[in-house]
């Protein structure tokens, strides 16, 4: 009996250590996930399923001044981009591929009109319409927190999905085309 009594408090002393170890393992797993990219760091959009906010009302030139209502009844992509954003350059070829399947509309976020125009002449223009959001007010309505972001709207103007970050070819095959196919059904 005199052997057992002192042991209990020892066990209690070990408990926090074990708890700490457990915590360390959990943190390590989380950290590894972030590093490997298996843990999704993308913030979810609450706008999915809701009616899309308005586009800005300043177009980049008359030719690119097509409103969303022009595309009523068909799905449309809204790409929030900027000439100063490097990933936005990288996604232009993928958007060009997509533009053969679905009209793509750009919101130029915090960009100067001449910069956007130069950007489009340099990298090519996959967009049916380009609208200027000079101060980022519209972007807040769209829930943007960084460019590029891309939204897929159905024929009624409802947001079907949001993709944060550049659109690459695998985004098209894995995310956008399946959603388009779903819409076509």
């Amino acid at each position, binding site marked *: 009996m005199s052997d057992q009594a*002192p042991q209990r408090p020892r066990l209690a002393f070990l408990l926090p250590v074990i708890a700490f170890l457990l915590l360390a393992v959990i943190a390590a797993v989380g950290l590894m996930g972030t590093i490997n990219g298996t843990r999704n760091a993308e*913030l979810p959009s609450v706008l999915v399923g809701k009616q899309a906010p308005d586009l800005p009302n300043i177009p980049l030139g008359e030719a690119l001044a097509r409103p969303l209502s022009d595309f009523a009844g068909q799905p449309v992509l809204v790409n929030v981009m900027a000439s100063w954003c490097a990933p936005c350059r990288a996604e232009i070829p993928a958007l060009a591929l997509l533009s053969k399947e679905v009209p793509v509309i750009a919101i130029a976020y915090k960009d100067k009109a001449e910069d956007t125009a130069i950007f489009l002449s340099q990298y090519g223009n996959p967009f049916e319409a380009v609208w200027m959001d000079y101060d980022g007010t519209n972007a807040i309505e769209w829930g943007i927190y960084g460019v590029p972001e891309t939204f897929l709207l159905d024929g009624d103007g409802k947001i079907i999905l949001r993709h944060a970050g550049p659109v690459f070819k695998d985004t098209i095959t894995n995310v956008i085309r399946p959603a388009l196919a779903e819409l076509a059904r």
Partner: protein
Amino acid sequence: MIMVKRLLSLLMVGFALMSGSAFAITPEEQLSDPILEERARDLSAQLRCLVCQNQSIDDSDADLAKDLRREVRVQLSDGLSDDVILANLQATYGDYILLNPPVSRATSILWASPLLLLLLAGGLFWQFRRTASAAPSPMAEDDVSNRATQTAPQNDKAQAPSIARPALAALIGVIIVITAILYSQLGRPELAAQPLANRDTQRAEAAIENAARQAALQDALTKAQDKVAKVPQSVEAQLELALAYARNDEFQKEGEALRRALALSDGAPVIKAMLAESLSRQADGQITLPARALISEVLDAMPNEPRALFMAGLAAYQDEAYEMAISIWQELAKSAPQGTLWAGLAQRNIVTAAQEGGITVPETLQPAPDAEMVTAITAASDEDRAEMIDSMVSSLEARLADNPDDPTGWQRLVQARRVLGEEEGLLRALMGAAQALPEQRDAQLDLLEYGLSHAASPAWLKSAKAALMRLSADDEMALEYLFFAGHVARLSGDTNQAIGYFEALYQALPRNVVGGDNDFKAELRAIITNLKAQN
């Protein structure tokens, strides 16, 4: 007293000024109405900056935080209530924008967890109290004092630590091991050992070198500009200017010069391909849509234009269409002259694309030797290695004997023999290649070159003459032809003929060539004199 008060207030003003820098909000953002401004600050403190994620928008300097602060103030000025403003932002950005997460089904565990922990702690405490009071109280007290002071334990109490201590030691050991593993996996900074003092001198040296290089580049650019100013209608001058701009990293101007050259040359496809390349350079290497349009124009006019083919492959690669990229580059590797820059680049890129796309490339086009082979060879013992290489090369040779129309295969065989230092095998390979590929100039020239650095055997002489015949079909006045014809004649003992060829070569060489080529002329003169003396 008043003095002290004044001092205190001064100090407080000082602190206020100092801490003022910690606030991200700038004066021009503030609302004129102090009550509204107060509400705006209050709301901002509750909203998360979605870029920095652990700061409120009130604290953050991020652009988005600034926009959100403005949005809050706009909505306040519109007369909306705090709740409505929060709800509006929550509707576009979700719960995540609220630093205080609302109670919902998803967050219930989060909110309940402090209570649960408290209950758990209380339960444990109660449990210990019960067991402690069940045990004889002097024992427990003794144990506490023993733990606190770590005085020499008495015999009967030493038992308890003797169990816990190894366990504790083991635990600490485990923690250290885990930490070490984590550290080696995640945190090790891989910096080369570079003492600070060295770094400064290195930096200074690099700066000097860089300045010299810059000056030289600038110089070349000025010269090119002068030339263009003198002969503005010369395509060549524009191309030189474009090159000078490209070397100075002025890709925009490179493009302009190329456009002028393109206009002057009436849209030459080769220049168009250069322009496409320049456009891509302007776009940090991305083959942009305008560049793609140019490339397809070039390939329509000239399906084998190597630069356009190379870039077409790159465009496919950037689209992650790896199989297409590989097939385009294979085309390039086939059509570009062997041993040129394009063929090498194409081969290298095929390997990269194959790895990226997880594609196995048909064997004949695989460059030799691939990484796997190299590892296998280096892993083997010396004898095994020699045997492995030998069997590989022999099998290649056998395959080429069956199917001689394989330029890359011949190239590999020649290279392998050369590296292995097998003179006999090398000559055999060179002769085989020259014979199997009569159209390939390089194959003929390689064979002819062999005789200059090796003792000329009758076998070589015979096939060298045949190679000369094939070359002469090309152009009898080509410098290489004259050069090798002279040597072959000399080595077969036909001195007169050799003198004739060498004289013709001497005449054909430009009168005043730059740099090392003048040495060559002198050398040639010496050979001729020597031959004449022999005669």
